[in-house]
């Protein structure tokens, strides 16, 4: 067992536990986007940042990937953490304004405006779909391509993958486009994002017969019109 301090409270966890799990065990809320139980931790969205260490050596790390260490001092909501989280959410909002998940998170953190040039991207490259496809569906049909601003998710050379079984798990898990299929609960769809968000993969030919966990699918209906 490892004993560490989260927000001043001692907590004992097993070897290999991440800071996120330890904090959640204690009931401290930490927002996440790219983390899902059952998928390997990735540390891409940086929302789950916590501050560790003391004095000048204090630094921010993503709690979903950082293993618990003996005697570690963790602060889940220091001003440094909150400031970083707010800027990240502002950036997310600037790139991907129509995701309900992101809107909710931004609202919970009191963000009322974003000061960057507005973009309308569909994907925040959190990699949940890639890990879902590889780790849970055992397909490895999609992956990351290129780097930096050109980074995207898709199949190699945009050719339809033979490994893809069109299970739709990638759509199901996507935090940016999950809202597309909430039509049975219209009260949840407050932003109208459902009409706008198309998963990028649906634009490619050969995916028309994609299975959807909601049937019939709103996005597909809209697309036909």
């Amino acid at each position: 067992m490892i004993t560490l301090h989260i927000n001043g409270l001692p907590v004992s966890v097993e070897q290999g536990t991440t800071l996120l799990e330890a904090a959640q065990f204690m009931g401290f809320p930490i927002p996440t986007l790219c983390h899902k139980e059952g998928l390997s931790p990735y540390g891409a969205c940086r929302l789950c940042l916590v501050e560790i260490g003391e004095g000048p050596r204090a630094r921010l790390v993503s709690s979903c990937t950082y293993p618990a260490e003996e005697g570690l001092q963790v602060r889940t909501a220091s001003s440094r953490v909150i400031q970083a989280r707010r800027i990240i959410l502002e950036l997310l909002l600037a790139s991907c304004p129509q995701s309900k998940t992101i809107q909710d998170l931004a609202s919970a953190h009191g963000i009322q405006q974003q000061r960057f040039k507005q973009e309308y991207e569909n994907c925040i490259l959190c990699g949940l779909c890639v890990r879902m496809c590889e780790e849970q569906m055992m397909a490895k049909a999609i992956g990351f391509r290129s780097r930096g601003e050109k980074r995207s998710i898709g199949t190699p050379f945009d050719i339809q993958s033979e490994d893809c079984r069109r299970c739709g798990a990638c759509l199901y898990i996507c935090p940016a486009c999950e809202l597309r299929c909430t039509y049975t609960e219209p009260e949840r769809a407050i932003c109208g994002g459902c009409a706008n968000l198309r998963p990028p993969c649906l634009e490619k030919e050969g995916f028309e017969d994609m299975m959807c966990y909601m049937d019939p699918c709103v996005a597909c209906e809209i697309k036909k019109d």
Partner: protein
Amino acid sequence: MEKVKSLDEFLSLHDRLVVGKDPDIPTLIIPAGTCGQASGANDLIRITKKELLNKKLTEKIRLRITGCHGFCEMEPSVLIEPWGVYYPKVDSKKMVDIVDSVAKGEVLKDLLFIDPITGNPIEKQSDISFFKKQVRTLLSRNEKVDPIRIYHYIENNGYVAMAKMLSSGHPSQVIEEIKASGLRGRGGAGFPTGLKWERLANQTNGNGKFIVCNADEGDPGAYMDRSLLEGNPHSIIEGMIIGAYGTGATKGIIYVRNEYPLAIKHLLIALRQANQLGLLGENILGTGFSLDIKMVRGAGAFVCGEETALIKSIEGRMGEPRQRPPFPVEKGINGQPTLINNVETWANIPIIMGLGAQEFAKVGTEQSTGTKIFSLVGRIKNTGLVEVPMGISIEEIVNKIGGGPIHQTRIKAVQTGGPSGGCIPAEMFHLPVDYESLTRAGSIMGSGGMIVMDEHTCMVDLAKYFTRFLKEESCGKCFICRKGTQRMYEILDDISAGRGTLEHLGLLQELGPVVKDASLCGLGQTSPNPVLSTLRYFREEYLEHIEKKRCPAGVCKGLITYLINENCTGCGLCLKSCSAGAIRGEKKERHVIDPKECIKCGVCQSVCKFNAVETR
């Protein structure tokens, strides 16, 4: 090449080689690194060879083809041993004369280096101000060694330290020595090398440990690792053998970027020769110690210089960093303990072993020992690779070694540490160059790029250039680094185009520290440095762009207009070269630029011989 099977055999080979060389025979040394070859060193070599054969001088004069000596600006150059005579920028037509003069024992006065300050010719390389102030522990070895001949390296005491260490039978002594030397990682972060090695040595050796040489040098304008790999590959191999012996590693990997074809060629030759001679591979020198070194070529991503991304790249996966811990020393390539050091760090190891730790630690400061190679480039008289003791002031590097500004301008800042480094203004040039002082000033040591800037460099444009590089080279895994660099670039672009507002500055200052704090790896954590350091020291330049819509350096295209002043003689050169047809005027009369048609390409300014085109 016959295998050397024991220490005695090796030492007798070494003695034979040392006795066999006659130091009095004049030797023509032609540096033919990438810089030399690009400026025509191959022609000089061809002519010299032909000349020596035709005139039957092969017994009287020797020829040695080496890697770069550092003064890249003066290539192709010729150095003559043992006199130390140095001819810069040699015209291939003059090469015959040089060979003749060496045969006669004369010096060609009119081909010598001219001191840019006094205007006097200087005969010896060691008297040139560029070389005089340097402490060339590593780079001077480039002159002595032909990189594709292992015997040359052994002749100059190469592999001797390694052989003695291996036969001593005390691996722990290696680590003690490195710790005592105070050597710190030359890749930029400055982690004590001895401590890192000790941590690897303490790991249990299950399926073998790895040592890696990180030669993925990607900073724009920095090339010290390349010149070491090209000029003296055996020193890196020797360093790695010593390191492997000290830490118990059995597998070595040299990760070189594929953009360095000559370095790769020389390394492969060196590895083959060392293997053939029995200095590498199974049972080295009969001591029972084995090390296998392989080379891996990187596909050219800046981020692969980061150690966790480098490991992924070696494993054949996408070069993306991951969270540390676990550190590579615990879990690296294929889950095995892995030690990663920079090229320059490895090249320092044989020197420490040869000199002894105490002697090595005498150079430099208490916290940062030894020498460091910088690639000194930008708007100064002498550019090239300079090797200086740690703790030397920036002033001395820029003004003494670099020779001060070109033309009659004022140097305003120096940018250290490559794209993730920061700018240090001229007022702070008294700062000593070591890891701590540079970090305190908002910059980093980095791998050793040093770009000098004068009044014709716009700091906003500079920050924009580096941020653009970083936004393209960010791996894109973590959101804050990918979007943060993109957004910073966007704002800088607005400012340089005259669309900037004061809110933009506030936003930059808010965004920068968060990108620094929240990013996963070193690339993201240092990526706001160019922006934040220029904002810190050159805020008034930003304000000038925003409030007065003016670029004081005359660089930002959106804020300047080109004008032709009274110096114009009406030669018509600019008129002919203007692709937009924006220049009008009669012959021998002052020309005019039509600002409506001008596309601000700057060609007129570069072709004008009378300094008549100015920007405002």
